[in-house]
């Protein structure tokens, strides 16, 4: 997919680019007047190119900015961009436009643009969403776009995902059967019902939206979190998985920072862009853990 908006937008640029004058939102205490030089330059450039000919519809986005090494961006702030609007435009499209036309230093992760790479989870108008599958038309203006909360901000909308990845890897996230069929071409059969049982859990794209939305994860840095627990569920419920690995994994998830921390607030389930019933999966794992303990005692 293109990094560029539809052609008509190239021919007609917006009347306004970066708007450094509007008042900052209270929560982040940004200083809108200290827009850094490259950003201002680019914004002005865009306005020059545009002239005042564009009178089509625009959308106003307010984007969180921070860069630890650039003067003027070391204190977090919000920048305002007014981007030309076309039907079907997503939050990601708006960010790409703002970056390519106004401010090349605007930084965010994105790749596939079709909700499968999981790179572009942001905090949009107060909720975790994938930028590429969130329509601008469904959002109130100005659209506030911030990095995922509860993760360290690296720059602008980019957060440090290492902690998330560590939690994902803590649940032995791999298939480990006790035995595989003898024949090299022999399948390890799985019933359709069992495949259906694990299907939703296999759809996770590791975007981190659930983890960021979870109050428990925010308060307990060691909590495995909904995505990792869902990964554990994917193998715990697979009829082909080996018993010894299943047992080990159950021990991991029922420890102090595991399933019992979940208070079934459903925030993870509500924000999951792949509609995975995360809370239900965690509840089922709790039941598995109880069953296992009953068996041993």
């Amino acid at each position, binding site marked *: *997919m293109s*990094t560029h908006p539809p052609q008509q937008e190239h021919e007609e640029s917006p009347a306004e680019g970066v708007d450094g004058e509007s008042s900052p939102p209270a929560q982040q205490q940004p200083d809108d007047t200290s827009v850094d030089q490259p950003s201002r330059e680019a914004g002005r450039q865009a306005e020059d190119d545009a002239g005042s000919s564009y009178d089509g519809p625009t959308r106003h986005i307010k984007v969180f900015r921070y860069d630890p090494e650039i003067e003027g961006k070391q204190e977090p702030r919000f920048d305002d961009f007014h981007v030309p609007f076309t039907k079907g435009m997503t939050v990601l499209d708006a960010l790409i436009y703002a970056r390519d036309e106004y401010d090349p230093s605007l930084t965010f992760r994105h790749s596939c643009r079709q909700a*499968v790479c999981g790179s572009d989870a942001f905090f949009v108008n107060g909720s975790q969403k994938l930028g590429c599958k969130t329509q601008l038309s469904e959002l109130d203006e100005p659209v506030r776009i911030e990095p995922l909360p509860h993760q360290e901000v690296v720059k602008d909308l980019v957060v440090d995902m290492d902690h998330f990845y560590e939690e994902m890897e803590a649940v032995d996230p*791999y298939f480990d059967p006790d035995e595989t069929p003898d024949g090299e071409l022999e*399948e390890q*059969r799985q*019933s*359709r019902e069992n495949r259906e049982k694990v299907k939703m859990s296999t*759809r996770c794209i590791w975007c981190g939206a659930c983890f960021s939305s979870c109050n428990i994860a925010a308060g307990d840095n060691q909590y495995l979190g909904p995505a990792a627990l869902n990964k554990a569920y994917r193998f715990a419920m697979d009829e082909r998985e080996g018993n010894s690995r299943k047992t080990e994994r159950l021990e991991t998830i029922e420890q102090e920072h595991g399933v019992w921390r979940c208070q079934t607030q459903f925030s993870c389930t509500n924000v999951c862009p792949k509609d995975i019933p995360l809370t239900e999966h965690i509840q089922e794992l709790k039941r598995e853990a109880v069953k296992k303990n009953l068996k041993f005692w």
Partner: protein
Amino acid sequence: MYEHDVIVVGAGGAGLRAAIAADEAGADVAIVSKLHPVRSHTGAAEGGINAALRDADSWKDHAYDTMKGSDYLGDAPAIETLCKNSPYEVIQLEHWGMAFSREEDGRVSQRPFGGLSFPRTTYAGAETGHQLLHTLYEQLVKRGIQVYDEWHVMNLAVSDEERPEDRHCHGVVAYDVQTGELSGFKARDGVILATGGPGQAFDHTTNAVSCTGDGQAMAYRAGVPLEDMEFIQFHPTTLPSTGVLISEGVRGEGGILYNNDGERFMFERGYANNDGELASRDVVSRAELTEVNEGRGIEDEYVHLDMRHLGEERIIDRLENILHLAEDFEGADGIEEPMPVKPGQHYAMGGIETDENGETCVSGLYAAGECACASVHGANRLGGNALPELIVLGKRAGYHAAGKEMEPAQVQTGKRGEYETATVDSPVELGEGGSPGDAVADGGAVAAGGSADPDTLLEATVESERQRVDELQSGEGGIHHSEVRSKVQKTMTEHVNVFREEEGLKQALRDIREARDEYQNVRVMDPSRTFNTDLLQTMETQNLLDLAEAITVGALARKEFRGAHWRAEAQERKDDEWLKHTLLSWNDGSPELWYRPVILEGENKTYEPKVRSY
């Protein structure tokens, strides 16, 4: 400097499979990738993996279908290697727990796909690539294989002997996106490029924004030929507004294409009287565009793909992901209405010239996956043949790089054996020719440092890349890379599309020349060293310039119609003249065109070119 036995560049299906194989063979292997592995574009593959698993099927039939699909431009030893090994590799994935769709008896499901004589496409819903990518990453974690994620590889450390066949690759230079640190990565035994395709050279593509052909451009500049680059697959069913892919699985399950007059044109207009919608992709794409060009398109732009008659239950069971994509990216409800579709750039059949063990003509340098050309797809790739290439050839490259003993390859690389040289009738100077610029800003040629020892060579390459970054970030004014990129994407989509003609191709070369010259004045506007995507994309744009030119040069020179390559001036396949692979060598900045005959002799038979009808 970091050091490993084997360095794999890229962490999609081919890279992960290669790393697992190298690990199994006992090598200390690490992956260096500009994306975290699960972000790789393999995850967007939808349809499936072809494998002759059943008694009624055989790898020989798969090979025959693939050779026919390739329009007789695939090399038989490579195709046979792919088809023979695919069943084993699919079952290996199954043993690793991949969530394949299942039959009532618990075995892996298979469905019909375009150009196949047997329903041999295994799949996991319409999200096969996602399941494959995550399954492989799980195995990577299990083995504790090291990943340097969000490290962008900028260049290869290759010695500079005169003939590429005498050169050796000792490692790579990479840039840590998060911190801006530049470092050498020494590879004691081999470097495997698994960096995907150059789809971003076009502006209506199913490919991710990160598909910028980095490995192809780096290998090309290090002297490895690019092979058959003119063969670009345009997938017949992409969403018009975004290029998002609608899987061939929809047609495999029975989806029907209609024009604005409600005609099932694949049959009614005689494009493919036997196979209809399930003709090969190139055939269906041309049919759709012909309908649109002759005024029977919808809104003069697209056609309809209808799957309503399959019923909600079957759609949800086998194609659920398609419902989400059509709804989220085109606002169409596939259960209630037909979906708008048009052809979009999807896949590059060509790439880095390798043999069927993944080895290039530069020793120690390998390539696998879409970035490579073994060649298994020839002039047109069959649906469901990309994923088996990742796992079969990825594994072989991993084994070979790790020193495991393998059968010697039959496909030759580099200027060895039979080949012929040629000239291009280009309206402008190609490559670096005519550019006022210096080699550094232009991406660097073969690393300075000659045939010095590996450490010295790597250090010299790191230094020249450091200079390049400094130059891109220094100075005032200048233009932004996105202007250059957008110029290339537009001209490629306009002139190097499904239908190609001489004047259009020449215009594309002029535009690319102009874009190359403009690139000399490109400046990275973001001064930061922290997560500088402006710098990253500026370097990617350089790669796209080289690849767009290579694609267009190959297309201009090949005056015939074969597979995905159609020429207005020569609308027929010319086997007497063109049963040969296009090769393009960088030759110190002055691209050189040459050709090598196709290998049609397989293990026990010769594949005689036949008229390709569906």
